[in-house]
């Protein structure tokens, strides 16, 4: 091998490999540490604690369940972000506020139907502050209705936003679109604040608690989140695999070249992208509130970076990637607690986002066709 080739190879190695090696080493260490913790042993090296500690299988499992639940909702919300990113080619910073908008619409609907006939004044119900806590078992139909309204409502919101904001800008560059979406995010978020105020309202709490395998304890609301998001993901899967429009969308989202060859995507595909993505975002937000119990005007905005993490880890444009990325990021966000103090777990999810963007911008499943 000549000097020249060596030099050029050297650049490649320096550019790509050390990152991967470091990531592998860190993951290996964390895994080892986890095993040690579960075994309840501590390893000392030169007098300082190297790894280990203690952790029960039960608390590990409950962290996994927590992460999985948040991850499913984030993944659901991420599908829309991923699709608009690849089909319309911009990072939509208003997506988090779409999540909020859908959640508010859904919860107002659920709250009002549940509260009708209880004598609570309508303004109190509308403002979500009658103090009532809904749950799937105690108020099944209102919760179900809210779910539908969240989906339909957020579709209406995104279609209106698209009509007013993005449609006049179809041919502009992706940074202008990104900036426009920042404007949309501000407008939407504070419109919600104008209507519903800036307080945090408690609207839901589990009505029933079941223990699975005598170790994991979950509420009915959490089971609802699990079932609904799995069903919806399955539905999306069928839509993409079985229908013609779904196939066209998948092709456009997965394959940038194809999108480029076929030119600007048709308005029909764009509209479907918004409908599907917006609807799932609203439902994802609704379910998250069902699980966490509280709602406030900026919870989607705060969630946005986590959704971005899910989408990027899963590979931009890949719908299945968004789902998997959501679960992965949810797990990272929750399991980080094993190694990090609670104030820093969210930071670890963002760190994963940065590392993936730097080392594998096509996502960790990137390059593999997701069809």
């Amino acid at each position, binding site marked *: 091998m000549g000097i020249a080739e060596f030099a050029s190879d050297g650049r490649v190695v320096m550019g790509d490999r050390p990152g991967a090696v470091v990531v592998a080493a860190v993951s290996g260490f964390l895994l080892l540490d986890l095993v040690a913790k579960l075994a309840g042993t501590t390893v000392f090296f030169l007098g300082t604690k190297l790894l280990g500690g203690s952790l029960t299988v039960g608390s590990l499992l409950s962290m996994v369940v927590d992460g999985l639940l948040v991850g499913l909702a984030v993944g659901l919300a991420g599908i829309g972000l991923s699709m608009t990113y690849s089909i319309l080619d911009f990072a939509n910073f208003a997506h988090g506020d779409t999540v909020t908008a859908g959640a508010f619409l859904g919860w107002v609907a659920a709250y009002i139907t549940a509260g009708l006939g209880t004598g609570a004044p309508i303004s109190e119900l*509308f403002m979500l502050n009658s103090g009532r806590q809904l749950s799937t078992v105690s108020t099944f139909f209102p919760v179900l209705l809210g779910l539908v309204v969240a989906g339909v409502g957020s579709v209406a919101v995104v279609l209106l936003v698209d009509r007013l904001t993005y449609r006049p800008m179809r041919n502009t560059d992706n*940074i202008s679109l990104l900036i426009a979406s920042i*404007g949309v995010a501000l*407008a939407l978020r504070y419109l919600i*604040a104008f209507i*519903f105020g800036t307080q945090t309202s408690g609207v839901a709490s589990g009505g029933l608690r079941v223990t699975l395998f005598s170790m994991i304890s979950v509420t009915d609301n959490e089971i609802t989140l699990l079932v609904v998001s799995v069903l919806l993901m399955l539905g999306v899967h069928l839509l993409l695999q079985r229908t013609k429009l779904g196939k066209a969308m998948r092709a456009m989202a997965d394959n940038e070249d194809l999108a480029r060859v076929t030119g600007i995507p048709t308005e029909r595909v764009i509209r479907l992208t918004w409908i599907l993505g917006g609807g799932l975002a609203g439902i994802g937000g609704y379910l998250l509130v069902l699980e966490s119990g509280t709602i406030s005007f900026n919870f989607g905005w705060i969630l946005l970076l986590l959704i971005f993490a899910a989408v990027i880890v899963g590979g931009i444009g890949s719908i299945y990637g968004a789902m998997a990325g959501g679960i992965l990021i949810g797990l990272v966000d929750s399991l980080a607690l094993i190694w990090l103090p609670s104030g820093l777990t969210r930071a670890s999810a963002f*760190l994963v*986002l940065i590392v993936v963007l730097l080392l594998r911008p096509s996502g960790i499943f990137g390059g593999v066709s997701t069809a």
Partner: protein
Amino acid sequence: MSAVDTVRNRLDALPDVGLVVAFIASIWAVMLVLAIAVGGANWANLAAGFIGSVTVLIGGYAILALALNLQWGYTGLFNIGIAGFMAVGAYTTAVLTAPTDPAAGAVPGLGLPLWVGLIGGMAMAAIIGGLAALPALRLKADYLAIVTVAFSEIIRLIVNWDGLAEVSLLGVPIGTGGATGISFKSANQVASTFINGVGQPLVAAMEGVGVSGPNLANLTYGILLLLVVAASYWVLARITNSPFGRVLKAIREDETVTQSLGKDTRLFKIKTFMIGCALMGLAGVLFRGQAGYISPQQFRPTITFYVFAALIIGGSGSNTGSIIGAATFSGLLFYLPARLGENVSLGGTRAPGNIIDAVAGLGSLDPLPLLAYTISNVSTLRFVLIGVVLIYIIQNQPDGLLGHRNEPATSVSLDRPQSGSGGEADE
């Protein structure tokens, strides 16, 4: 011709310094009119308060917009981690200058003088910016955006973490104060000492017309900030109107071509990023930490987007535009609506507590409750306005007020040299 075009033509006719001064003066005039309209006998003090606050805002956002203009307007580096770099600067200054023997419950620092703290803060923001830039600057613009905003959130979470609230570094107790924040040497204090010392006659005279000491001190601080803006402008104008600035513009236009012409674009980008971050760090202290106190809450990503709004309004790519944009944003969109909402009342109609009660009035054809509700919530609605303005500008006037101007990147006059080079010019 749209309203923006009219404003733009007016602005074009003025030289830059006159332009900025006239612009800020007219915002002051607006504040004065408002104070006279609502202040009654107390108008002078109210005016000083309004003008002081708006000047501090203009100063803060102008420094930030100038820094962002260097990074994004000139070089195309889409940094939306501004809040994070502000936090790095502010926290470094805070830790360096907080008293070694703080009040009970507060965090101790190193007790150094403020100027050491400011230099330290800028240096640290530049270093952290450079470290972040090293791997990130090869990314596409929108990826860089996501990396920087994630980075800024990580910084905020770290300073918010109680593990660093109070630690011992080589035996010296220091810390960030965690979620409660940290108190340190206040830049505001410097202004107030100054005005109450040298400016004592002025203070006395102003008190004579009813302007309170604190309001005058705040106004002094605002004017001090404007001096910092002027200094930043001077430095940035020299940076951008030079061969260095020319390379930055070229990177924004086409990085590959710039490399093909022999420029190591990575170095230029890293330097630019560091200079911009240093300035953001400075604004972090002088603006967010003006009163000598900071907490993680003050460095949420929303402030980053306000800076973007300011720069886009003024015109990305223009230093003068950055200041005009900052003044427009903070004076007219951010500050004015909130003061209007506080001071405008609708006779006897009291604002309903929620929107349902407000809308209910419409049923009996009474729009006043809704109007009153809207006015009392105008400080929320102004953000809707900012969002809408941002969308409008991007759709219709992407160059903002001054971004269409070509500020040539050179340090000399670009006119054709007179010393007859052939004399075949055919104009």
